[in-house]
């Protein structure tokens, strides 16, 4: 049996003078004619020109070569061009191999001899590699136009509503039992001092009534696979032991014998073991604290079940794992209040009547633990209140940055106090003031006029609190000591607790400060580091409500412009594949796949690649210790042949 020597058809491009002036094309032609495995097409002046393309196609049609080597520019320039031309005349794209004799030869030396020798080596390597190629198949799929929004604060709510307006299905995933985020815990929104519940209530009911939005609460995303236009998202929804039929009528609250510290009230008040966050929440359904509920603790109580007019209590409800698909993921997980526990000078937790801004806001909220009434621990009304700016911010043992929005919150304190106690003296102690836009600045001016006294310290980190005859004494560099009844610490904003975990799940980057990193700080500020994933609201860094909403709308606008119904996305052609007859099922490839494209079939003791998810990065191929995982078009055979071709040209 004689094996026919495969032949590669060589196209030499002069690239005008770009190649022909620096590489001896005649010598290459001469070498090619003697090589045995190469067939030479005429060299062309500009192979990528309309005329050159036609020449390329015609020659392919006429010669029907085994493989093709295009000796021209970088594959980054035109590999796709020639592959597509080849496909158009029924030659599989995998047989087209570029030899970069421009950037790698002509442009890197003045020595024509050297450039020519290197060109021959590259052409030979390309030809040898091409003989090992196996045909590739193009795959496309329709882009998925649905969206998953993670986090149901104001940013997440607005994102969901905008997307739903464009008829997109939206899954809004919130880890608490109802939507609202931080805004619902405040009374008024500065600088416009709009009432927060009044602002949110219609937005919440719009979400509830929108058939395009599926709200999934008490839930967290725990796995994401895929890429832009093609995500699969796994959501773990914890049981709340109350069915959706619950309308939040609160009949069960009255009968529940158990009081639980309320996280919603930042532990300043209590709620029952069966609870909602606030009246009118979305969803309306209550939930049960399993750890405290007597039914679960010792099976001694069924009171809520008996009291519920709708039969909504269900102690047997189970956690659910929900899988949804989407084209884009919007991260709206917000922020956490800056942690100041480690900053001893501020005596937070050690002295009574010292609160953070978040706690203070909760206290003065009409839906707060004291129904909005501001009083001291002893029940009396305060006469003088101090607000400490930058508490725990701009210092290495706290948040090393300025959050940019807390000065407005700090200035708001006086206004909220005067609303109910107009005669209280307010003094704000600061080192820096940040009111970065005209509206914020005029809000500040208003507060000064309304009576808030702003005191500048030389160093805000020097603030020291101490107890002084039932009052609190504050000293700081550059100011005279101040004695007050109540202190509000204006803390900064830090990344939400789940940011790190979520970044790992989504395989996206965080900034050094822990907030999600933008794809491009200026041009794509709401895009995460991976296509199809967006970051909005405080997830991308501290912002006020207005900017939280702006970023939400911006992200959805961008997502809509890409996730157009009917648009196809090309799937990766050069995926990895695992030979089931060779895979030992060691699972090591699963660990490293950055796109989670590999799963293990426990019955067959093998792993397999989901080709719709695989991006062809090749990580698993390098990982697979048994050689069962192969990268299409980058097989060992191709690479060894290429190296061999280089060495033995």
């Amino acid at each position: 049996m004689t094996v026919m020597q495969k032949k590669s058809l060589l196209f030499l491009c002069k690239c005008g003078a770009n190649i022909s002036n620096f590489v001896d094309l005649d010598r290459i032609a001469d070498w090619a004619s003697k090589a045995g495995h190469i067939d030479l097409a005429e060299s062309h002046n500009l192979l990528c020109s309309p005329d050159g393309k036609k020449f390329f196609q015609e020659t392919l049609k006429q010669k029907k070569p085994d493989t093709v080597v295009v000796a021209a520019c970088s594959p980054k320039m035109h590999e796709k061009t020639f592959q597509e031309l080849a496909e158009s005349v029924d030659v599989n794209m995998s047989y087209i191999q570029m030899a970069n004799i421009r950037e790698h030869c002509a442009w890197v030396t003045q020595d024509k001899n050297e450039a020519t020798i290197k060109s021959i080596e590259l052409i030979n390597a390309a030809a040898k590699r091409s003989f090992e190629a196996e045909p590739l198949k193009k795959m496309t799929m329709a882009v998925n136009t649905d969206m998953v929004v993670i986090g149901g604060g104001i940013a997440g709510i607005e994102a969901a509503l905008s997307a739903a307006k464009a008829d997109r299905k939206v899954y809004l995933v919130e880890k608490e039992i109802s939507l609202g985020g931080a805004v619902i815990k405040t009374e008024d929104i500065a600088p416009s001092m709009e009432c927060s519940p009044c602002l949110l209530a219609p937005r919440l009911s719009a979400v509830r009534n929108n058939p395009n939005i599926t709200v999934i609460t008490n839930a967290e995303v725990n796995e994401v696979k895929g890429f832009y236009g093609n995500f699969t998202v796994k959501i773990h929804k914890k049981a709340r032991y109350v069915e959706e039929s619950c309308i939040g009528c609160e009949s069960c609250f009255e009968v529940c014998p158990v009081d639980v510290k309320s996280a919603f009230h930042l532990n300043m008040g209590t709620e029952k073991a069966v609870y909602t966050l606030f009246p009118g929440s979305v969803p309306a359904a209550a939930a049960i604290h399993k750890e405290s509920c007597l039914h679960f603790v010792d099976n001694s109580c069924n009171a809520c079940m008996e009291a519920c007019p709708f039969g909504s209590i269900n102690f047997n409800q189970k956690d659910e794992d929900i899988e949804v698909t989407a084209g884009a993921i919007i991260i709206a997980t917000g922020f956490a209040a800056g942690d100041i526990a480690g900053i001893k000078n501020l005596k937070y937790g050690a002295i009574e009547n010292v609160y953070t801004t978040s706690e203070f806001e909760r206290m003065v909220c009409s839906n707060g633990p004291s129904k909005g009434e501001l009083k001291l621990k002893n029940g009396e009304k305060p006469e003088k209140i101090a607000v400490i700016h930058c508490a725990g911010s701009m210092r290495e043992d706290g948040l090393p940055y300025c959050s940019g929005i807390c000065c407005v919150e700090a200035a708001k304190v006086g206004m909220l106090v005067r609303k109910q106690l107009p005669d209280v003296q307010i003094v704000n102690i600061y080192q820096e003031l940040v009111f970065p836009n005209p509206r914020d600045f005029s809000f500040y001016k208003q507060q000064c006029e309304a009576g808030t006294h702003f005191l500048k310290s030389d160093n805000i980190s020097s603030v020291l609190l101490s107890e002084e005859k039932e009052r609190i004494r504050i000293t700081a560099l550059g100011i005279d000591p101040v004695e007050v009844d109540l202190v509000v610490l204006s803390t900064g904003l830090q990344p939400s607790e789940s940011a790190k975990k979520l970044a790992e799940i989504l395989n996206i980057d965080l900034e050094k400060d822990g907030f999600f990193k933008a794809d491009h700080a200026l041009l794509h500020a709401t895009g995460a580091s991976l296509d199809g994933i967006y970051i909005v609201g405080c997830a991308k860094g501290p912002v006020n409500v207005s900017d939280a909403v702006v970023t939400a709308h911006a992200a959805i606008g961008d997502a809509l412009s890409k996730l157009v119904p009917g648009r196809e996305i090309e799937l990766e052609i050069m995926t990895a594949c695992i030979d089931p007859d060779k895979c030992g099922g060691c699972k090591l490839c699963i660990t490293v796949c950055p796109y989670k494209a590999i799963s293990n079939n426990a019955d067959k003791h093998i792993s397999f690649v989901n080709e719709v998810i695989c991006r062809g990065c090749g990580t698993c191929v390098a990982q697979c210790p048994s050689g069962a995982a192969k990268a299409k078009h980058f097989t060992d055979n191709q690479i060894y042949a290429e190296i061999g071709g280089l060495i033995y040209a």
Partner: protein
Amino acid sequence: MAKPKIAFYWCASCGGCEEAIVDLAEQILPVVEAVDIVFWPCAMDFKTRDIEQMANGSIAVAFINGAVRTSEQEHMAKLMRQKSGLVVAFGSCAGLGGIPALANLTSRKKIFEASYHDCPSVFNPDGVEPKTEVVVDGHKLTLPTFYETVYKLDDVITVDYYLPGCPPTTDIIVNAINAILEGKLPPKGAVLSPDKSLCSSCKLNDTKPDQVCIGPIKRIIDIIADPEKCFLTQGLICMGPATRDGCGALCIQGNMPCTGCFGPTDSCRDQGGKMISSLGGILEGEDRDSLQKATKGLVDPSGTFYRYSMSASLLGSARKEGE
């Protein structure tokens, strides 16, 4: 019909492969019954000329164990090849270089220095070293040449089949002999053992999670290994993922991680390199410092990853000055 003739020969090996044949115990009886052993210098008294006098191709199968380190071994391998229909590389040394091939990390000169001069138990006041020729009382005595490099068998002759293992296990020897006797052999060049990695038959594989992340690498002497948990996940280097199946996970059953003696699978060109590449993906740590910490316990990388396959590795040997 005459019984098929079988020959055994050993090159650079420890004798374990010969032992493995003896270990067939009563299973060797039907073999002895069915064949005619015509050459087995380790066990019976044969001379080289016995083989030389045989007709070319008259031996049905020659089982050759050991790597090729001297000119005599090369000569004998070629002689066996000439006289035999089939040659089977028996064991890891013949197949991949084996333990002797770890010497490729050093040079002949250094080996001689260590063995004939520096080793504390050596008494050699005259500094004598082996020579290929020496005249004693007018008689010329010769010794084979000691090569600079240890070769695997197929570097010097064509090999038809490979029996992996250090040494091959009873089962795979018996299977191979039966396949030969029954004429049920796979295409030439095959390794006569399953072409999957050991994890595929290791009972501990189920304890390995989908996400494997190993902290500081440990040696088996550093910890008391948990016999119920995949060794790799315990931070021990188990070569199982990079090693051909077929041994029946013997070491694992003995609470020892796989050291890789069955060599790589067909699709893997460099067993050690593959394992190193794979470890890179599952080691804990991102930066230089943490990775250095994680690999601190890896005191002998070549001996760990290339214990049996140095001759078959892409590099093959250390670069030697002046060679």
